[in-house]
């Protein structure tokens, strides 16, 4: 009985979390153009989606920025972790403190501060400024997920590799890198997800005429969201869901993957 109550509670929370997602999926098959009426089942929005250049361009921008930002952030973040580990405690605390600023600060303040910077540097607002901003808020996610792995590392294994004749680079990739990999992967995925889902910082750092999916949706809110947008987000969601289920179903022999928290 008590167990049933617990399960019911978890079930309710899941309904709460996933109800809007189901709603959007249902809306993507809705023949009526308005949100509030069900006009019968249709697939026309899915067809229309592939002819809608604006949306496809926004999708391309979003994915490119997320991919580039998370790749750069992963490389820079991992390098930073190696450096931090070899530093004095005071410098380390300082760097970690600065790294925490974008994590703890409000997105709106981060967005505004970057906007002020870009204006004073005279940069042209566009994809470039969005990318710079996304790299900035992505690095902390990588640093914070690689750092714990770095601390668990046994430095003797690396020294042993060097003693046995490995060069520093070879030694790093053979000994240290595999140990860090789960942290690096989860940092990358975290950064990618955050970049993809970001609206606020993009809102302040984008130029006129350049849109990511988020900013495009925001401008459409007043006019009414195009149903193609529901179709697109349903497709994205289903793709990710299937990919993640596949990864999770993967044979449990891959022990290293266990630390990946996505």
């Amino acid at each position, binding site marked *: 009985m008590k167990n049933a109550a617990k399960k019911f509670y978890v079930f309710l929370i899941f309904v*709460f979390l996933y109800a*809007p997602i189901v709603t959007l999926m249902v809306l993507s098959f809705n023949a009526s153009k308005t949100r509030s009426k069900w006009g019968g089942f249709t697939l026309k929005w899915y067809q229309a989606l592939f002819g809608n250049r604006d949306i496809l361009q926004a999708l391309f921008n979003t994915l490119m920025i997320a991919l580039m930002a998370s790749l750069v952030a992963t490389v820079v973040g991992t390098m930073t972790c190696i450096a931090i580990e070899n530093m004095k405690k005071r410098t380390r605390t300082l760097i970690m403190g600065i790294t925490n600023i974008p994590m703890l600060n409000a997105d709106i303040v981060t967005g505004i501060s970057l906007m002020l910077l870009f204006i004073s540097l005279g940069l042209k607002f566009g994809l470039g400024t969005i990318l710079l901003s996304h790299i900035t808020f992505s690095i902390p996610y990588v640093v914070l997920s690689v750092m714990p792995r770095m601390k668990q590392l046994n430095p003797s294994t690396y020294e042993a590799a060097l003693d046995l004749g490995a060069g520093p680079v070879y030694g790093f990739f053979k000994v240290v890198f595999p140990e860090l990999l789960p942290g690096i992967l989860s940092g990358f995925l975290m950064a990618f*997800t955050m970049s993809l889902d970001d609206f606020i910082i993009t809102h*302040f750092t984008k130029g006129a005429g350049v849109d990511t999916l*988020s900013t495009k949706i925001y401008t459409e809110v007043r006019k009414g969201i195009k149903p193609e947008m529901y179709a697109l987000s349903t497709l994205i969601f289903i793709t990710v869901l299937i990919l993640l289920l596949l990864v999770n179903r993967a044979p449990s022999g891959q022990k290293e993957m266990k630390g990946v928290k996505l």
Partner: protein
Amino acid sequence: MNKTKYKLLGTPYFIWSAIFIVVPLGMVFYYGLTDRSGTFTLENLISVTTPEHSKALGLALLLSFAATLICLLLAYPLSMILNGMKVNQHSFIVLIFILPMWMNFLLRTMAWQTLLEKTGVINSILSFLGLPPLAIINTPYAIILGMVYNFLPFMVLPIYNSLSKIDPNVIHAARDLGAGGLQVFFKITLPLTVPGIISGITMVFIPALTTFVISNLLGGSKVLLIGNVVEQEFTQASNWHLGSGLSIVLMLFILVNMVITAVFDREGEGSVL
């Protein structure tokens, strides 16, 4: 070994963080503490006491406080249940809460309009069951709901994380020594999860306090929060000095939160990651 060589690897990020984190923050302070002619003034900060701004800040504080409290009350039992379920894959739990983020956050929030509308899904179900309708769309209650919906995962994950780190032997020991269920909870479980709770509170309270999107989407245009005021100063009114001044006020709240976090969570145990 030769440590300086490794330290050099940090150079790109040190330069990067100086340019893109430290300098921009400095600029917010510069704009916030000067007027259009560039002379020092506290006027932008003081403007938070004008009736319009203080009302927006007060409402934002009230709503974000309510949302944080609701998140905590929902998340704690949930995390305990999830932890008790012994799902052998920690990552699976995290996955379930991160997954919704792959559907755009604006769309998900918009979907609540469809659900909450007068003739929306929820009210249809309620009237089918013979219950009175729920008329919360375009009210502050809808904003609280939107905040809870969007930020609940950020409360669940750190609490779940700190719960799963508790050594079951500690609880067994307490049991053996005669502690009852409630006593175990208040003497062991709760104190050990304080870092998670504090981190969760920060992760929910700050975005909720400063949001302008959720209030825009679910509050109609009737409800103005401090985030909306700041956003409008930058995108519509173009008074960057005033907007920066109000941002500094917001940062004071963030700072207080950071200090509390630092005090309670020295080891970084409550982190989401």
